[in-house]
């Protein structure tokens, strides 16, 4: 088992009354799985992702990564952000290099690695461009290249396609599946947060539906569809419909 969340709850204590975001969350994720967290906005999906990365500590409960309890930022994870979170004053290459240098990688090796992944996400020729010169889809490619370049065992994605136009996100989804399936690339396990049910059914082996206040797991659904998946097929629609009706009941 790669990842295990055990009795996780998260309470935000700000000036007002404490707000419980998550209560008693238990999730196990095996290596090699593609998992999507789905749920209405504000249900704690993104918080869960940050707990897994170690950006936030859980209020109670424990996160286990490879059976070891997590007590800080997990550098074997890499996070892709909804709004890209690129540094506007660094070029594409420099943005990717930053993450590698933070891991103490020597510059020549890091440069080689960065070039490889920038090429992998289809950005060759844009190495010296600044983020503001790129379209939204290309910015997210940089975000993905940055995450892949650290060769994480677990790739975390926080609504990576929701800031993009539909056509771009279709393309990027396909490419993400290619990257996930590529045996030459280190990343084999992906956890993605989305509020787009079709996207989840298209991509995931498993859809975890989170909902309610505080957030808890409503359903954990195995998507037993062969790949490549076709949106028009009857089975596909059945999965989408059943998740829709579950979500409507929350």
């Amino acid at each position, binding site marked *: 088992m790669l990842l295990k969340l055990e009795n996780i709850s998260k309470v935000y204590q700000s000036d007002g009354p404490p707000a419980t975001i998550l209560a008693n969350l238990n999730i196990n994720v095996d290596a090699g799985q593609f998992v999507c967290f789905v749920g209405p906005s504000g249900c704690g999906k993104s918080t869960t992702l*940050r707990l897994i*990365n*170690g*950006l936030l*500590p859980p209020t109670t409960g424990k996160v286990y990564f490879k059976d*070891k309890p*997590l*007590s*800080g*930022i*997990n*550098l*074997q*994870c*890499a*996070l892709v*952000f909804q*709004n*890209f*979170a*690129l*540094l*506007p*004053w*660094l070029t594409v290459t420099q943005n990717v290099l*930053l*993450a590698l*240098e*933070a*891991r*103490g990688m020597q*510059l020549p090796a890091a440069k080689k690695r960065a070039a490889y992944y920038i090429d992998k996400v289809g950005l060759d020729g844009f190495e010296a461009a*600044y*983020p*503001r*010169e*790129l*379209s939204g889809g290309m*910015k997210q490619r940089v975000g993905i290249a*940055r995450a892949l370049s*650290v060769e994480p065992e677990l790739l975390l994605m926080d609504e990576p396609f929701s800031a993009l136009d539909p056509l771009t996100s279709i393309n990027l989804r396909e490419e993400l599946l290619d990257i996930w399936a590529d045996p030459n690339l280190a990343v084999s396990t992906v956890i993605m947060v989305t509020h787009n049910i079709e996207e989840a059914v298209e991509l995931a082996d498993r859809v975890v539906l989170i909902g309610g206040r505080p957030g808890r797991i409503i359903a954990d659904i195995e998507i037993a569809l062969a790949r490549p998946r076709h949106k028009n097929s009857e089975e596909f629609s059945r999965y989408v419909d059943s998740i829709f009706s579950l979500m409507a009941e929350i």
Partner: protein
Amino acid sequence: MNVPLQPAHGICRSSRRWPRWRNPTLNAIPRPGTGWALLAAAILAGLLQRSVLGRVHVPVRAWQLPLDAAESLARMIVSYIASLLFAISVGVYAARNQRAERIILPILDILQSIPIVSFFPAALAVAAALFGGGRLGMELSAVVLIFTSMAWNMAFSVYESLRMMPPQTMEAAESFGIRGVQRFFAITLPVCIPGLLYNSIVSWAAGWFALTACEILTLGNQNVTLPGLGSFLGEAVNSRHPILYNILGAGTLMAVVLMLEFFIWRPLAVWAERFKYEMSVSTLSRDHRGILGWYQNGRLPRLAMDFVVHPLNRATSAFIRRLHGTAGSIILPRVEVVRPMVRVWNASQRTLGWLVIVVLVIGGGYFTWHVIAGGVSPMARNIPVAIGLSYLRILLAYLLSLAWVIPTVVWARNHPRILRMLSSVSQSLASMPPIALLFIVVSVFVRHLNLGRHWGVELACLFLLMNGVQWYVLYNMLGGISKIPGDLIEATDAMGLSRMMKFKKLILPAILPSLFTGTITAFGGGWNTLIFSESISYANHYYHVLGIGWLLDVASVGNNPPIATGKPLPDGQSSSLLLLGVASLILLIVILNRFVWKRLQAWAVDRFRLDY
């Protein structure tokens, strides 16, 4: 047809492409580093002259002007570097530490909006006590005085830039394990650069503005004149050829300010474009020409990166790992994990904070008692009336400034070249110490217009005040007008709105936030000018009008410009008058800012924000 403006940029930027009319000059420069080389040569010459001749007080001599300018420039640079270090450390500290934020922020806020010139006697006394009365001590004291007029707004801007940064950036950095020096150079510092640059320009103007007061130091009954442009201007007014020397001094100052503008600030502004936090797609041309190219491709910046920044990065990240015993490990502990250290650090900070407060309160109390015990001058009774009159003068100057600035800026909106020119002009004229304008003021308003002595001086005072106020108004309005998105202007054009409607519905609301922000700075400039403009000493005549600026000038008798009130106050009485005057002035400014301008500004920013 209206040419849509390029998307939101501060006014300190210049165009992305060098405008045609400046190209020949730029192309004539053989090496991009020439500007720096010239500056360095000028500074060296100044320092050399100082050490070789070692003079302290000299009569005004025109041929020494370039050297005077170099020495003043050297002083300004030293103060600026100190201000920069102060601004970054204090600003970052306040942004990171909530407890520190609560103490530092109000202090910075007050310091950046009060007339810092009125603190010079006190600051000078402290500096002289620290550094001694020798030549070096006096130089250091002058640097401290310049520092006090430069540092506060810069620190404030560092704090604001860090607080305005999108939270995702820090989160991303943390999730990829970016920490320590690497985080400082990759994120913290770049985020601050645009704001820091804008405020550096303002600070340099403030420094030049106060230069005369910084270079003619009054300690007790003794006047120490440090050679420099400021003291040249200060002594020119009472020299044998006041008009000639005045014009020469002002011209030299103007030349220095413009040189800095073209060789330093403009290229920096183009360079700083990239640090702006806007991710919208725009077509920023990467301009490698001119001096800018030096910053980007020059050997020195690159060497600095390779031999200082990168090794520091690597060393600290290795150190952090070793500290947490995580070299090569996969989990990077949260910083909070080192609990005992944090606790000790917090506790010591708290103690230090209280200690500072206690020392300040006791020291301040003792000082006040000591000063008041020295006897209160009967002139102190005039303080409320004086402040009221002064406030009316500044208000009038402010309204007059608005009256010409708004139409000008609205008209210039469609002419990028004129916008740029205006920003250079406002910046260099804001740098003019009031004393540099005395020759015009006195000869025109006091001597040649037949208004009677009182109204002549009143008009002269208003003119000087305008100069201290209007450039800040202009500078801020230029920033505001260039932030109006082109598509909104196109939309109003397409709707066929009349000029008046367009002004009322789009332009005025869009510039209101900048207007109120500018108001606080403009009034700050006004209060600062007051001390030089309500009492004028020119060609051995002394003119004054009733106002707080005059009272403060009387209280610091012998302070520059050397004045002949005829009846200097007894020593103790002058310091109590100074204390009471400054204290009531600060009280008024803080109250007005807190309860009027800050509220108006918050309202305008909230109501007329341009992003949605």
